[in-house]
């Protein structure tokens, strides 16, 4: 709630009501020809520049923000931001009225311009998106926020541009929670860590005294659920990252693990292991009522809700091996959906509702893939020695997961890193983290 209030977003000019012949980017296929676009540094007057320099220790905040936008759009794989050295028009003039011929000359199809000012101790940004070929303004927005939010300003501009050009919500004003790893493989130290989607503002949330695993965001707030071995008792915990309070979820006489939130954020779904069996339970966070959802002598784990909350996908070895199942949210109508060769784990329902992402093990290789919710249309996106645990971007277009390397014959050379890949199977990228990393979870958009 707090975060959402920070940014006051106001529409400066209304979008053109009838849009035709303007640029559009198709994100449903691998994009081998990313759209060339120019991100002009945001213009800034000398007085504002000086104020921000004092507050933020950044020489030119207008150009810093434009670099964030450029980087986000580039990493999406859909856009090709052009080199600023080739720009012919000054930022302040371009923002008023671009000379489209100049931008056309360097083959930019879209242009982003803007202006930053320091008003009443706040940072005010306006930006415009222009269609260079049609010589038209596509969008103009302005918003005001506290100066320390300047990176988020860059992410919000990126989201708006992405949405305007692709027709789908962006995913840049988001954070990733993950497990930071250090030390030898046999004595790994693990800490909860959080960072912006582009790797900035990394913070460690625990000290590493106890083993922590599988943090997941609440899709409706900035709450997190995770597994901690605090006092050597593996239990599911709930952590409010705004207040820092944490608590054990439920009172189970044994290990609870594999937690996730329901889409409305009101329940936690998880596994409880006892006597060699693992079953799926939910706990309502308001009235603390615990419900047993599966009841089977097998291992039932890695549950994930459909975005409407009506169904649950999970992982079970009731057939003898790990496979993916779907059931109603009360545990009825259990159906196996994975029938391909190999083992299937970590199913996670897309925020769009149409796909389930998973990890597959077949003939000694690990794959990240997607299938429809009835199990048809299986598509493997990436193959590697070891990788697992996909998490969806809030728009359901990108998956983040972790990958581990094989050790050499001395048992050395192990590393764990975060990677992302588009749903199309293209644009596979290493997500930089200060330490080794695993178990990523993508937040929802911080602002809309």
């Amino acid at each position, binding site marked *: 709630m707090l975060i959402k209030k920070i940014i006051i977003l106001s529409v400066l000019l209304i979008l053109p009501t009838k849009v035709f012949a303007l640029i559009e980017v198709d994100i449903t296929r691998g994009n081998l020809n990313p759209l060339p676009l120019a991100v002009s540094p945001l213009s800034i007057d000398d007085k504002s520049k000086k104020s921000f320099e004092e507050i933020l220790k950044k020489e030119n905040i207008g150009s810093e923000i434009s670099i964030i936008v450029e980087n986000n759009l580039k990493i999406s794989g859909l856009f090709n931001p052009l080199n600023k050295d080739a720009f012919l028009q000054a930022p302040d003039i371009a923002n008023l009225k671009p000379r489209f011929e100049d931008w056309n000359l360097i083959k930019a199809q879209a242009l982003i311009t803007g202006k930053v000012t320091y008003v009443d101790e706040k940072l005010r940004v306006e930006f415009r998106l222009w269609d260079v070929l049609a010589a038209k303004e596509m969008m103009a927005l302005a918003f005001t926020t506290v100066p320390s939010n300047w990176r988020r300003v860059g992410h919000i501009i990126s989201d708006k541009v992405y949405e305007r050009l692709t027709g789908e919500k962006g995913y840049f004003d988001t954070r990733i929670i993950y497990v930071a790893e250090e030390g030898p493989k046999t004595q790994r130290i693990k800490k909860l860590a959080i960072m912006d989607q582009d790797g900035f503002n990394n913070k460690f949330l625990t000290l590493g005294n106890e083993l922590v695993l599988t943090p997941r965001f609440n899709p409706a707030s900035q709450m997190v659920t995770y597994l901690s071995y605090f006092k050597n008792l593996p239990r599911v915990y709930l952590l409010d990252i705004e207040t820092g309070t944490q608590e054990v979820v439920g009172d189970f006489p044994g290990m609870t693990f594999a937690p996730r939130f329901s889409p409305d954020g009101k329940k936690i779904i998880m596994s409880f292991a006892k006597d*060699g069996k693992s079953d799926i339970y939910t706990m309502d966070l308001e009235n603390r009522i615990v419900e047993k959802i599966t009841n089977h002598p097998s291992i039932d784990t890695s549950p994930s809700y459909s975005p409407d909350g009506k169904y649950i996908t999970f992982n079970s070895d009731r057939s003898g091996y790990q496979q993916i199942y779907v059931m109603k949210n009360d545990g009825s109508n259990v159906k196996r959906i994975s029938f391909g060769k190999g083992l299937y784990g970590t199913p996670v329902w897309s925020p769009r509702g149409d796909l389930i992402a998973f990890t597959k093990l077949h003939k000694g290789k690990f794959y990240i893939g997607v299938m429809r919710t009835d199990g048809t249309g299986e598509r493997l996106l990436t193959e590697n020695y070891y990788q697992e645990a996909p998490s969806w971007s809030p728009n359901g277009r990108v998956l983040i997961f972790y990958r581990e390397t094989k050790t050499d014959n001395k048992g050395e050379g192990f590393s764990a890193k975060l990677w992302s890949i588009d749903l199309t199977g293209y644009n596979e990228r290493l997500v930089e983290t200060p330490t080794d990393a695993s178990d990523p979870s993508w937040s929802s958009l911080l602002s809309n």
Partner: protein
Amino acid sequence: MILSKIFKNTLVVIVACLVLSACATKKEATIDSIGGQIQGDVYTGTEGVKYLADGVPDRVFFATNESILTTASRETLRAQAAWLRKNSDINVVLEGHADERGTREYNLALGERRANSAKDYLMTYGISSDRISVLSYGKERPIDSGSTPLAWSKNRRSVTVKAN
């Protein structure tokens, strides 16, 4: 400003707590794989094995994805049961582990299942369930950091650790 306050608050999360003493006792793996042996898919060597008493090995090994006890494992557990009967003041924790070739969450459950399979066997030999607790580490605490079938076989284990 508000954001930075949020981040400051997150630091409150950092909780003072106990060092994982159980982990600290585990020997760093030595990577020389020549001494090891595998039968079928189950480790039969002695690397890393400690003894609770003379002739009482502390661990049993499992085949990939399995929690069934082998003949050798049952022999080990009978020796453990005899030792526990003789030392009725000792309680134990059975620590279940999996190899690295499986998803993290499934492996947590698998480690729990393996430790329980050892627990059940100790119980059939007269050890009260009050004296046995179970703790799964999944694939989090391998004894051998190698990426070979031999290393994985050493890591698929249930280790009996004195709790008091």
